[in-house]
């Protein structure tokens, strides 16, 4: 049955074979230009932060953060303050709580799970307390962005927060790497491993919360995990792997936006499907083959 559906909904403009025309067509609409711009910024940040998220096994935290912001925004609407404030407070606060409770790899997913569950429970309470006044749609609107609904103003904010995030990662880069590779040694050498974990989760929370607001939950999460995981299979040199992760994230985003433009399916479907397939291919290839080894030798 599926093929019928598939053919049925191909409603986009067909790509010509002329590259210039195609690009012009793609960028004809403001919302597509905005999507490409914001998508690229988000992809760069996700590529960088994702490297550490994957290295430290923090995908769950990366996902939990997008749930948690929801509770914060709902709570903010309830007490009548700006939802964005609630979102950021809750996200960064919960990220820090996760960091404090889950120092080591083991047991950290428990800390994340319990903090997330509690945040969701609080969100539930806020919704009950605020029943009937459209609170949730208001916080929904604040929380869940859409890559096709990005305004110029969104891009400016995204650029601002992204720069801050990248700057912070730059400052903590070497200590973060040390703590991620050999926590006990790094701690002995004076790196504040636990505090760093808390700070990193805070940074991740900030980046994810603001990206969710712009591009949506799925896009940021897929970009956070898949490109970095693939890059770590291609290069064992951290700076190279981070660069590869960024390039992959940007390519994924562009490809997904382009495919979504020409075929009438959601951007997030294309992005997650590309990420999934690319990850499978890298894993299948990663077992040994010669070209990969050569690539590894170089990168």
């Amino acid at each position, binding site marked *: 049955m599926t093929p019928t559906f598939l053919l049925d909904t191909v409603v986009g403009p067909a790509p010509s074979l002329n590259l210039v025309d195609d690009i012009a067509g793609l960028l004809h609409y403001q919302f597509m230009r905005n999507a490409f711009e914001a998508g690229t910024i988000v992809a760069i940040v996700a590529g960088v932060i994702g490297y550490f998220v994957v290295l430290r096994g923090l995908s769950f935290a990366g996902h939990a953060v997008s749930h948690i912001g929801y509770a914060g925004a709902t709570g903010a609407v309830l007490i009548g303050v700006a939802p964005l404030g609630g979102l950021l407070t809750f996200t960064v606060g919960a990220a820090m709580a996760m960091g404090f409770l889950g120092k080591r790899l083991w047991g950290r997913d428990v800390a994340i799970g319990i903090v997330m569950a509690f945040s969701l429970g609080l969100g539930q309470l806020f919704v009950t307390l605020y029943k009937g006044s459209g609170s949730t749609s208001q916080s929904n609107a604040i929380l869940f962005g859409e890559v096709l609904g990005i305004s110029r103003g969104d891009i400016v904010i995204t650029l601002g927060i992204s720069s801050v995030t990248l700057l912070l990662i730059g400052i903590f*880069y*070497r200590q973060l790497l040390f703590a991620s*590779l050999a926590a006990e*040694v790094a701690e*002995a*050498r*004076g790196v*504040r491993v636990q505090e760093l974990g808390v700070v990193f989760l805070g940074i991740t929370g900030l980046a994810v919360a603001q990206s969710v607001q712009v591009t949506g939950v799925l896009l940021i999460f897929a970009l956070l995990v898949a490109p970095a995981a693939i890059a770590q299979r291609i290069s*064992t040199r*951290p700076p190279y792997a981070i660069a590869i992760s960024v390039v992959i994230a940007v390519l994924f985003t562009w490809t997904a936006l382009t495919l979504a433009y020409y075929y009438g399916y959601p951007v997030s479907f294309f992005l997650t499907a590309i990420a999934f397939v690319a990850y499978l291919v890298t894993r299948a290839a990663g077992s040994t083959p010669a070209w990969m080894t050569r690539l590894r030798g170089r990168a």
Partner: protein
Amino acid sequence: METEGITELACLKNVGVRLGDRTIWSGASLCLAPGTVTAVLGPNGSGKSTLLRLLLGLVPPSSGKVQVLGRPPKHGSAAIGYVPQRSGIDPDLPVRGRDLVLLGANGTRWGWGLPGAASRRRHQLVDKALSAVGATAYANRAIGRLSGGEQQRLLLAQALVSEPRLLFLDEPLTSLDIRNQVVISQLVTNIAQERHIGVLMVTHDINPIMNVVDQVVYIARGRVAVGRPADIITTTALSELYDAPVEVVHDHRGRVFVVGLEAEVAHPHDHGSTGGNGR
């Protein structure tokens, strides 16, 4: 020990330590002088690793006074090189051994680490350290996939490259082949003398470091004894320490070997048991 004074890198004065609800040991007094190697010996679970963690400030003393590099230790120190007993490196860690060693040199610094003279010098240091521990050949492979001994040598290189004032090594010769046990204990002694740093090394096997040790710390039964090797590495002293007959023998070149007297050894609780004769 007798020359205790302002030149000491680290000193314990009547220190005790508790973990959980157990007192591991107490009444320890010792100092580490620049340019000397101190061996830490003692049975399993006696608290050797705990001594290192105490000096690093990762475990607090329950009594007494600890001074490391002029102040009470706290949260580790960039001036101390450290090789832990268990590396805890994940088999799938997708990073080269060389990068871990490089982090030994710059992993406590802030910022991204731009290329430049300092960076080049650090890379040279890394190459030297890798070559000194014989790890050059596999330094570019993913660290998790390396053999136990290969990882151990990279951890050592990481500690050496940090230009430390103190070097704490927890069973650094574990998993090393005989040849590298010799190479590396020689290396550590040379570094201690050339750079005038203090080395504290936990070990069970006294042979490879016998002639390089300036001071021996024995930890057993909750007590900590400190002395010159010649005073402590005797049949009487060791037998008493280990609660087992230990013989100190010398080979034709005059070197010392400590040998357990197998014939007389048996487990105290279960004499002659083989752990499975109940089948």
